[in-house]
Every structure is written in C-alpha cells, then in structure tokens.
C-alpha cells in the first residue's frame, strides 16, 4: 500500500479546510438571499473528495452531483470563479449559466455537478472508455450518493464499466439519506458496496470520516484502474451535517439531533488535525493559520464575485450550438 507522506497529509488537510469554509460561507450567503437558488452543501463529507482527489491529475476526469462544490474545490477549483458562478456572474466558471448545481471546468477535469441524480455515472464510464481507447493511464471517478445508487443509470453504468473493464472508480458517498428519506426506507441493503458483485468489480467499504482510510482505499482502486484491472465500487460511510439544502442541521423532522451529534463527534477535520498534531506534522497553531488563511481567501473571493459584472443579456442565446 502506498505510504502517505506528510506533504500529502497536509495537502488533504488544506483541501478539507478549503471545502468547509467555502461551504459555510456560501450557505450563509444563500440564507441571506445573496446567492440565488438552492445550495446543497458538502460539510461533513470533506474527507472523501479531498483524499480521493490527491490521487488525481487534471487529466483524470470526475463526475459530480448536486452536492458538488466539495468535489470541484478538491479538484483544484478557484474560489473566485466558484463564488462568481454561484452568484450567476459573468466571471464564473460557466459564465453564470450553470450555477451551483451545474458547475464544471474542463481544464480541471471536472465534468460537472449535476442537477439530475444519477446523471454522472454513465458519463464517467464514457470518459473512462475514452482514456482506455486513447491508451492513457488516466482514470475517471464518479461521485454519487446512496440515493443515486437506486437510479437505473448507475446500474447501467456499473455494468458497462465492468463489462469493458474500464478505468472507472465509482465512489458512493453514503450519508444515510436521499433527501429526506433514510437509507433503510429507500433500499433493502445496508452496504451499497454489495452492488459491485452484480457488475464484476470489487466492492470496498471505507470510513468516509477518516481521510487517511479514504486515501488508502481510493489509492488501491485508482492503482487498479490505471493498471488496466478495471473498475471498483468504493463506498464511503459518511454524513451531511446540514439539511439536504442550506445550512440548518438540527431540529429536522426526518433525523434526530442525537444522530447529528454522534457523527459530529467524528468530525473528519478535527480527527485529522488531532492526528497531525500527535504526529508532530502540524501544530494546532499551524492548523489555525491554515483556517485563517483560507478564510481570508474566501472573503476576498466573495468580494470578487459581488463586484463582478452580471453577464450581458445578449449572451443568453449563446452557446446553445457550436456556431
């Protein structure tokens, strides 16, 4: 197994902080009515995107979900263009046309957040096919939720990836809920990883609150894929701290506050920071400095987005077709 270096640990840590602070800030801006539309926030799940993405280059593709900010940040997304996109500004990653739920960037290998649950996995299969076809050793990674694992599109994609032995990694972020419906009320299994057996690929379960565990499991799957050994379904057990949309976490009708508190005790950032401190890799003060630095960057980017121009309405009709 690949030995994790201090530099990689610090890299994962920084990506997680970037996600957390971006999300908390974006959520507040949405609640204040500054960012239009609904935001699905990634807080609680940061370890997964961060620890997977350190294995990937910009030439490795990912497909994301409606809860996609974390994936883009971990893949190298810049706060300026991200906030601008959420605000619907001309300087956003998609010139304001995509918004939170459809944010994407080809240079970073981020094929898009997706407003359609289950939209991503088949696209990741095609991207993986193309990598194999062009004889690169690049992979594609599809992120999706427990709820999405019930869509036909996921099953079609998994079967094709298994059949063609494609360099695709299916990462199920099982946070226990699809919207407001608990997993036990939307599928008869506990482990989504069980579904791998039906498609001729390994199914692996990992603690999604443990960045190092995710790093190791994802590393194995990605190594297999790069070596031409085919796809893996990696299920990460995790939790979203907030409601399906927005920032409220407690007092919700469909889950208990105790449950939220239990998961928060296993906070992926706190536990990683403790480990980094214990091992003398990052002192609490140095960790705090990362938080502060990121917070400043976030504030600067919010200002950038707010000061950016709206797109010109004449561009409304552009980019429907090639010319």
């Amino acid at each position, binding site marked *: 197994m690949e030995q994790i270096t201090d530099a990689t640990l610090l890299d994962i840590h920084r990506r997680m902080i970037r996600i957390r602070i971006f999300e908390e800030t974006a959520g507040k801006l949405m609640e204040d009515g500054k960012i239009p539309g609904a935001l699905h926030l990634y807080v609680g799940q940061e370890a997964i995107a961060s620890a997977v993405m350190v294995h990937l280059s910009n030439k490795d593709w990912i497909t994301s979900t409606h809860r996609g900010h974390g994936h883009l940040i971990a893949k190298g997304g810049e706060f300026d263009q991200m906030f601008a996109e959420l605000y619907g500004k001309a300087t956003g990653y998609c010139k304001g046309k995509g918004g939170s739920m459809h944010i994407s960037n080809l240079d970073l290998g981020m094929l898009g957040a997706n407003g359609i649950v289950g939209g991503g996995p088949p696209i990741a299969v095609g991207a993986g096919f193309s990598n194999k076809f062009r004889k690169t050793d690049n992979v594609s990674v599809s992120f999706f939720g427990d*709820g999405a694992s019930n869509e036909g599109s996921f099953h079609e994609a998994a079967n094709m990836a298994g059949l063609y032995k494609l360099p695709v990694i299916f990462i199920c972020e099982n946070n226990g809920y699809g919207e407001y419906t608990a997993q036990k009320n*939307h599928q008869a299994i506990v482990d989504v990883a069980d579904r791998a057996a039906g498609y001729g690929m390994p199914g692996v379960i990992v603690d999604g609150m443990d960045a190092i565990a995710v790093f190791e499991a994802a590393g194995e799957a990605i190594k297999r894929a790069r070596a031409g050994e085919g796809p893996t379904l990696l299920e990460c057990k995790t939790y979203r701290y907030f409601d399906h949309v927005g920032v409220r976490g407690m007092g919700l009708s469909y889950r208990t506050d105790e449950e939220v508190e239990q998961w928060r005790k296993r906070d992926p950032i706190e536990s990683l920071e403790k480990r980094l401190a214990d091992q003398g890799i990052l002192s609490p003060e140095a960790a705090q400095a990362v938080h502060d630095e990121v917070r400043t960057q976030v504030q600067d980017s919010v200002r950038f987005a707010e000061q950016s121009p709206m797109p010109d309405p004449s561009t409304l009709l552009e980019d429907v077709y090639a010319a």
Partner: protein
Amino acid sequence: MPQMNMIQALNSAMDIMLTRDPSVVVIGEDVGYFGGVFRTTDGLQRKHGEHRVIDAPIAEGGIIGAAIGMGVNGLRPIAEIQFADYIYPGFDQIASQLAKLRYRTGGDFFAPVTVRTPCGGGIRGGQTHSQSPEGLFTHVAGLKVVMPSTPYDAKGLLISAVEDDDPVIFFEPKRLYNGPFDGDHDKPAVPWSTHPGGEVPEDYYSLPIGRAEVVSAGDDLTILCYGTMVHVAQASAARLGVAADIIDIRTLLPLDVATLKQSVEKTGRCLVLHEATRFSGYGAELVATIVEECFYALEAPVRRVCGWDTPYPHAFEWEYFPGQKRVMVAIENLLEEE
C-alpha cells in the same frame, strides 16, 4: 368558502380520493414520511397508511413503471415525480408503455395512472429545476395532459385525472403553488386568498378534462395560455387596457378546440403564450389549430411569446421568463398588424 393555496388544494384532492376509493395509492420520492418536498402530500401517509402513501427510491423509471403495473392490476395510482425535470428517466415507461397499453392490447387492458409533477420557472431553479416539458407529452398519443392555473382548478382537475381511466400527466406550475404570480418578480408575492381561484370547496368536486376556460372576455384579441402564463396574460392585458379573450387551455390534451375557435372567430387576432421553449412547443399545435380552424377569420398572423430556445439559464431568469414586458409588446404589435 374555504381558502386554499394550490398545495392545499392538491393535498385535499388526494386526501378525498384516498378516502373515497380504496384502490387509490400515492407513490413518489419523499411523499410519505416527509410529506413531499413542496408539502403536497403532507399528512397523507399518517392518515391513510404506509401501504397507500408509499415512499419510493430515487428511481423515476421504477416509480412510473410500477404505477403502470399497479394500474393494470386493480389500483389507481397517483405517481409523483418531484420536479418535471426528473421525469426523463421515467419517460420511456410513459411513452413506450403507459401511453400505448390500451391501444396495443386492442382495448383489453389499460393503466389508470396519474403522474403529478411540478413544472415551470421563476423560482431560480436553473436548468434542471425550471423546465416546462409539456410539449414532449402532448406529442405522445394515448396520454392526457393537464396544467391548472388556480387552486380551484387544480383540485377539480386532479380528481378528474385520478378518476379517468386514461393516463394523465398532471403538470403543476410550481411558481403558482403559493400565490397567483403574474410575472412581476419585483412586486411582493401575494397569497391565493387575494384571488377568486383560491376559494376551494372542502368537499369532492371535479372539473371536466377537455374543457378550456375563458378567464376574461374581450373583443380585441384572443390570448391562449395555461399555467403561470394565464396570470401574466391577465396582468399584461390589464396594464395595456386591452379587452382580451384570455383562454386558460387547462387541459392541453384533449384540447377544447370549440372554445378556441369561437373566440378567435370573434376577435380575429390570436396570441399564444407559454413558458416552454418555442420551437416545436405546444404553442405550435395551438397556432396550427387556429390557422386550420379560423383561417378566414384571422386579421393578422397568429403570434407566440415563449421561452427562448435555450436551456433554462441560472443567471438570466427574468430575461428568459416570458414576462409582462414581452407579452405587452406582443399584444401591441398584434393589434397594429394589418
């Protein structure tokens, strides 16, 4: 008379049908325990039981396909697709199975399925939470397609849809759920209690599928519209002081040709409105119908105001949405055309 918003009216319709007819079931994502993301099914599972108000996985093809099987086998399902934008994974079951069952079995069996689904824009939902795909469904023979514009119509038409032995795709303009939105997004939102369509009887009643409604009468021109655009049309005509026959199509398929024809023969001018994209939209069918039926009565070309032929954008909601400004310009131009 009790006041209801459109959500309460739809809830009341389902509650009544679940009570009256033991074969009625409701199935959809988050409809049971949670009560629906728009609260449309709130309380129904508690009252009628988990076996009748059923939480489904995120599997639209499965939901609609299962509703077909239930319908064939003695039940009368109401399937909710949480947003019309999510209906495409279920489109195959609708277009290939649901719509064709009766015909392909020579009338031997059928599935009395109602598919309820919120549609339309004006809620800053972007491209996958704002679409108006009704034209895709009116193009499938064997379906009925309904879109109410008031709580009163919503309840009466939903009850009819459930009682109908044919499959009905029931679109709910979600911007109208809480009030009669007339396209002016700067104005504070008004509740349904300010509108006569918010008066809804508690008890059972039904409205016929296949009948349009003339919501205001006038000789200057005819405006054909449905859903949110009914309110935009009324506000636009009022602001211009124009006397328009405004016709709420209400049931897109079957279309009430007689009511349309009678109006256009009187006015000689016709404007067609919808939120959906223009090219091959349902408006094209309306225009063709008017041209075929009323050609010699027309004093000007039939005109359309629709969504632009683009995906629904995140940043340009009010440039995209066919609001009062565009409708008023179209009315003025149409009245001047020779």
